[in-house]
């Protein structure tokens, strides 16, 4: 037998449900800062330093120093290098320097795309529920990046990195990197300034966490260019094939 539910109880329950739904929904992404834009390394109000490395000292363990020294011993003074093979910098060098080339950010509510001009290097930073379990992805030079908002700051946690001896920030595959993006004080002319506080920890290769802050200033009306790099390698290969066959290559 059905009991009659008092009217006030129904309305109270509905109110509760609506309240729970309302407050459990993440704050609208529209309320968050939009970092989209073209950025270059912070130069301040007219100062130099486009290529200046952010401050911070990296303290390597003995194991890391040996690995780094081995790499230097086979490459120093030569043309051998990741960049010369059209390989991107990888984290954290991609975010901290990337050859001094500009960076473009494109932001969607669920994803931030960092596009570093050099080598067309791209990072996909998955925000909120868009992120998945990093352990199900292959390790990469830029790792797997998950992010969430804390107020107006975007907190990015990167793991699944590959061991890199060919970086100026060497690290093992156990390294993890935390970035905290926020808008800093703008320049005198109103130009926006973006900052990222970065901490890299590595139980195998770092004696202590590597901590630094990278700043950029916005480039208005600026074209970040594409960066075709590997085509010449293919053209050389094609040229040799045509030459061996006694044919004339017409492709430029």
């Amino acid at each position: 037998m059905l009991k009659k539910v008092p009217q006030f109880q129904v309305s109270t329950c509905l109110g509760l449900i609506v309240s729970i739904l309302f407050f459990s929904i993440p704050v609208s992404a529209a309320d968050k800062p939009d970092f989209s834009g073209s950025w270059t390394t912070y130069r301040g109000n007219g100062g130099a330093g486009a290529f200046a490395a952010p401050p911070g000292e990296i303290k390597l363990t003995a194991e890391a120093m040996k690995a780094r020294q081995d790499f230097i011993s086979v490459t120093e003074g030569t043309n051998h290098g990741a960049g010369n093979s059209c390989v991107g910098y990888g984290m954290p060098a991609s975010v901290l320097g990337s050859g001094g080339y500009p960076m473009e950010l494109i932001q969607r509510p669920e994803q931030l795309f960092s596009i570093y001009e050099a080598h067309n290097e791209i990072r996909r930073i998955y925000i909120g529920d868009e992120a998945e379990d990093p352990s199900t992805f292959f390790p990469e030079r830029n790792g797997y990046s998950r992010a969430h908002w804390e107020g107006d700051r975007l907190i990015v946690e990167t793991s699944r990195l590959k061991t890199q001896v060919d970086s100026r920030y060497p690290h093992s595959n156990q390294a993890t990197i935390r970035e905290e993006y926020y808008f800093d004080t703008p320049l005198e002319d109103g130009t926006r300034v973006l900052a990222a506080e970065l901490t890299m920890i590595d139980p195998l290769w770092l004696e202590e966490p590597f901590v630094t802050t990278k700043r950029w200033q916005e480039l208005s009306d600026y074209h970040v260019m594409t960066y075709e790099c590997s085509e010449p390698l293919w053209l050389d290969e094609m040229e040799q094939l045509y030459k061996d066959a006694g044919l004339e290559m017409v492709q430029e």
Partner: protein
Amino acid sequence: MKSFFKYSVTLVSTLLFSASLYAHHSAAQFDFRNTVLVEGKVMEARFANPHMRLVLEVTDDARGTRDIEFEGHSRNNMRRQGLMPDMFTVGDTVTIRIAPMRNGNDGGYVTALRTPDGEEIGRVTGAD
């Protein structure tokens, strides 16, 4: 025989050293402190990333006439500095400023193009 090499010492800012830290490869083999001018006939010019390749036919007293291959900035940065492919047409004679090889071998890193009126287009700093 007329020597085509003219030597000049260039003061290099600290930017050079910090820039080279981010270079695509070690720039240690190039001497950016003692850049020199080289004149030669363009045999090949490939504007590419990560570095341009330029081959000049060069003649000097010491080593006679031969083709020398030079390296340069990425084509992205060359464009930003105003260095475009039509400035390096095959068959043209050009004068470039280079950071020579430290070991004295032929070759080097192109830092600028000198126009007939003496203007230098490019960035005389470090490798990119």
